[in-house]
């Protein structure tokens, strides 16, 4: 059950997408999101979608994972879909009118449009975590936020906290699995019963988990201190982030895509949308 979490999971590889500088990847991902929100009609939105699929193909990540990354966010997608369906009011005659429910043509089109946009958004964002290791990601965030240091914002500490948190997620999941198995072996009933019963049944799992997490944190802090860790001041790094030709090309492609989308917004007019 716990092993099924895919969001934020990294799939090692050696594709061109994997090798892009992680800083650029974050920026490009933000650009992609901006692009999705600029896209004002189906034509431009689908172009953005096709572009994303091409990038997926380049990365060698299996298409199956697209659906896997959508699964946990399905409730949000459905919620947006329904909200738009019922609350958008068009000008013409309503299509359906049942008591307080009124559905207009515009409601349906907007709802579909928004849903497609959200799906593209999630799938595109997951590509970033699929192809970038958590360490590279936090490294990139630290570098991107480093201008904030001038404002005395603890960028390094924040990045270190994120690195540690990310590093220990799999460890904690494994540990939770182990403790759950151990308590199940003692007859714990973790899967059935009402909400309160279920919550109560989790106590034998949570207490040992907290105890070991605190112990681990303590040991880690001690180990870091033993190696003279004293924060970000004057720290050098083993892996230098470098950007090369391919990163520049990627930026150019992205810029071209955004330009294309803007042009499509202006010149492609689909009746009714």
């Amino acid at each position, binding site marked *: 059950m716990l*092993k099924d979490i895919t969001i934020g999971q990294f*799939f090692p590889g050696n594709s061109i997408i994997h090798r892009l500088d992680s800083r650029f990847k974050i920026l490009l991902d933000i650009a992609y999101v901006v692009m999705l929100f600029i896209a004002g009609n189906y034509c431009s939105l689908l172009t953005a979608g096709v572009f994303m699929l091409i990038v997926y193909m380049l990365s060698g990540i*299996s298409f199956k994972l697209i659906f896997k990354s959508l699964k946990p966010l399905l409730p949000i997608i459905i919620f947006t879909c329904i909200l738009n369906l019922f609350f958008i009011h068009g000008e013409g005659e309503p299509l359906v009118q049942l008591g307080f429910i009124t559905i207009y043509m515009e409601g349906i089109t907007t709802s579909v449009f928004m849903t497609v946009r959200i799906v593209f958004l999630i799938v595109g964002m997951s590509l970033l975590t699929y192809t970038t290791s958590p360490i590279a990601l936090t490294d990139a965030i630290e570098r991107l936020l480093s201008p904030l240091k001038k404002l005395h914002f603890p960028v390094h500490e924040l990045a270190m906290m994120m690195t540690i948190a990310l590093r220990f997620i799999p460890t904690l999941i494994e*540990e939770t699995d*182990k*403790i759950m*198995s*151990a*308590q*199940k*072996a*003692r*007859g*714990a*009933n973790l899967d059935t019963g009402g909400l309160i019963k279920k919550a109560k049944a989790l*106590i*034998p799992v949570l*207490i*040992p988990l907290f*105890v*070991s997490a605190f112990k681990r944190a303590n040991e880690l802090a001690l180990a870091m201190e033993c190696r003279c860790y004293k924060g970000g001041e004057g720290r050098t790094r083993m892996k230098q982030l470098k950007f090369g030709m391919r990163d520049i090309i990627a930026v150019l492609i992205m810029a071209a895509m955004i330009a294309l989308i803007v042009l499509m917004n202006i010149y492609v007019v689909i009746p009714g949308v």
Partner: protein
Amino acid sequence: MNAIELKGLTYKYSLGTPFESVAVDNVNLQIEKGEFCGIIGHTGSGKSTLIQHLNGLLKPTSGEVIIDGQNIWAKGVDIRSIRFKVGLVFQYSEHQLFEETVYKDIAYGPKNMGCSEEDIDRRVRQAAENMGIKDELLERSPFDLSGGQKRRVALAGVIAMDPEILILDEPAAGLDPIGREKVLKKISDYHKKYGKTILLVSHSMEDIVKYADKVLVMNKGRLFCHEDTDNVFARQDEIIKIGLDVPQITKIMMGLREKGVDLGKDIYTVERAKERILRYMDKGTIC
């Protein structure tokens, strides 16, 4: 009658993902009632995965698990009742302790079984006694105990359920020599006293030969052999080849054999080695 029977047991991790891997590969096995069986194998040989099948924590990808003549994945079998019948103690079992007092923690299993108050009390006290936990410790917090004591409390927590089959995954790992000896001795005493079926997973060949009647060797997810301790060491060369250690005394005997003094391939305890050496010297072939 067999306490445990496995038929073509296969288990694959992460089925249907790029990380799919076979952890246990077509294992056929019978373990008799009352047997004290040592399970040995390299890290990643599938020992831990194998034992988690025996109480239904893992469901086999294919194959059958039969406990006491009953297929545990057959329809209508309550898997929790299997877990009370097959007690499983995990590696570093002290990590499972959570209650305020030792007493309450040991009582957790029996409580889940739905025992009455008096029954729980009797079980807790008996389990504590069997694991050498003194009465005054019962009211202490389990987090205040020493490593060895915690381990024995965790073991008592499983023994209190009075399982027919007791499976222990590295019960002595990470303890100091005295703690090791004490835990293993208590398990051995428990076996002698109640005659339950016991499966003991260990890295240490020395521990296994000292207590177990039979040895089960796992190698790369497959069952390498399941035989009487005497016979296993007849295959000592193969055992070394798959990367496992043999007891030190066996190594000495192997060295002697190379020098031309063959005292037999079934020597794995110092006592037996002494016996054989004395017998050999009596015959006067060595001075």
